[in-house]
């Protein structure tokens, strides 16, 4: 897609911007801000609501008023104290450890595969890629039992292996990396080739550093997928010492008797690390662009 010819072409129609064009620009900018703020609030408010609920007593949580929507009348840490009495630190550690493996594994494996599909010609490439993408088109629920039988036969159940190894590569990540590698201009590789670099060096020294935005996106999605995963860990893990956070905290989501503040405290505990991770990694979206070095 990206090619060597110039991407902008001088068009006589826009050589000089008419007056109403500039005003339109200004209006657009204001509108942009308004939309952004409104949407941002809409997105944040629910989280604030859940944070507030986590600081309420059960009674207060069940009797919502407009005044206490976003902050409780009498904040209390009861819900968090209840949580502290559970093995939550162990669950937290398990989740964090598994997530780290996912991220590192996928960043390397998916990037390598994505690069091969994007840039290299090798026999069976297109068919293989189609096969990989096709795995996304099968509803996961229908493979739970065969996967379970597989993991059981390979003695991987009830351990970190079941939570990590099958997930070290994923079609979504490969697809993501492939699309981004395709949009890196070929000039970079051509220059490297002229210098006599092999594919392996090209990948490590040029391609990967330039794909930082994509790798950051991949890291964020991998963390998210791992952190929130519920059904598969539930099926594969029976021993409580290997429970991840969603598993351990599922106790508190009882069918009839819902302890709202505790449920919300769980939600807060689960969401905050993801948010922090995102805030850290989204900076790479800017970093990566700065490093793109295409001008040369």
């Amino acid at each position, binding site marked *: 897609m990206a090619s060597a010819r110039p991407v902008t072409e001088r068009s006589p129609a826009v050589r000089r911007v008419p007056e109403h064009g500039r005003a339109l620009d200004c209006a657009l900018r204001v509108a942009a801000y308004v939309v952004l703020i409104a949407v941002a609030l809409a997105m944040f408010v629910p989280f604030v609501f859940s944070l507030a609920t986590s600081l309420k007593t059960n009674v207060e949580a069940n009797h919502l008023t407009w005044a206490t929507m976003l902050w409780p009348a009498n904040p209390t840490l009861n819900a968090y104290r209840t949580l502290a009495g559970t093995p939550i630190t162990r669950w937290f550690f398990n989740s964090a450890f598994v997530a780290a493996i996912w991220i590192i594994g996928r960043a390397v494996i998916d990037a390598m595969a994505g690069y091969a599909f994007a840039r290299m010609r090798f026999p069976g490439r297109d068919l*293989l890629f189609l096969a990989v993408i096709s795995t996304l088109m*099968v509803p996961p629920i229908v493979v739970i039992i065969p996967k379970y039988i597989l993991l059981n036969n390979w003695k991987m159940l009830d351990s970190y292996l079941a939570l990590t*190894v099958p997930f070290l590569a994923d*079609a979504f990540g490969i697809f993501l990396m492939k699309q981004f590698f395709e949009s890196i201009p070929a000039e970079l590789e*051509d220059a490297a080739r002229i210098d006599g670099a092999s594919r392996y060096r090209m990948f490590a020294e040029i391609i990967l550093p330039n794909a930082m935005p994509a790798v950051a996106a991949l890291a964020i999605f991998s963390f998210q997928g791992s952190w929130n995963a519920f059904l598969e860990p539930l099926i594969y893990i029976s021993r409580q010492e290997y429970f991840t956070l969603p598993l351990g905290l599922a106790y508190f989501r009882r069918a009839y008797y819902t302890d709202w503040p505790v449920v919300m405290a769980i939600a807060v505990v689960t969401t905050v690390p993801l*948010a922090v991770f995102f805030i850290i990694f989204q900076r790479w979206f800017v970093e990566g662009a700065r490093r793109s070095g295409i001008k040369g």
Partner: protein
Amino acid sequence: MASLVATSRRNPIAAEDYLAGWVFVLPALVIFVGFIFGPILYAFWLSFHSWNVVTPEKPFVALDNYRNLVDSDDFRIALRNTIWYSAGVVPAQTATGLILAVLANRKIRGRTFFRTAFYFPSISSSVVISIIFLWLYANNGLINFVLGTLGLPTPRPPWLSNPRGVFQIAFDAFGIHDVSPWLVGPSVALVSIMLMNVWTTTGTMMVIFLAGLQDIPGDVYEAAAVDGATQWRMFRDITLPLLRPVTLFVVTLGLIGTLQVFDQIFVMSEGGPAKTTTTLAWLVYVEGFRKFSMGSASAIAVVLFIITLGLFLVHRRFLGLTGDQ
């Protein structure tokens, strides 16, 4: 794509690629062959058998499972609902994801804040989101409150319990009753879940578009600005075309995700009310885990797979990009 790589065997890179290509995909391939292809092929194989899950017998039934789908009311209902769901959610989340990404990409103050805010719904646990939306959509919840204040009618039964098709409601207003089930449209309940889906996934699409926007070098815009192009023009003539591969990705993702929609149904509505939020993936679950019919569930999964694959191939051509690009 590639400029000066000719497929001539004399070219060392091309020759290297024959092997290097496989080396690069090997780790992924190991995982896929080990854990992913196998179970999927097993499920496909199972679709030609009958299995009640709890006993080992799996008699071969050839195409019976598929034949039963043709007569099955539930399958028709699920197919309809899934089509409505995809047709509604994919354009919506693609458009909003793109708009938010463009807006959040500018050098505006508080860019980090905005990006984080937009991404929040995507990372929130499904428990939180479902609770929030159950409250929003409740009869005495925020949405009805706003509608009431504006003097607009609120649906009875309230949103997530309302099985009436939205088009049906419109038809009724014009006095047209007795419409074919295929034309009543998604139910109010399904539309409610669709809106929730868009709200949740917009952030993810935004992140992807953001990463894509970063790859567009700034000097391209500078050159255009020197030429006197407006923001809108730049968006239309530079951003959009350069984002084609990313857009393909987002639309593909959207299609696959919406055709497979399960988690939201599981948490919010369990296929109801009156089966109007029963999607194909939900039906797979019900057949397999509640009706003790894993063979039939696998058949539905295969059909879903074929639909998804078909749509993927079609729209890939439509967007003018093939795997070779």
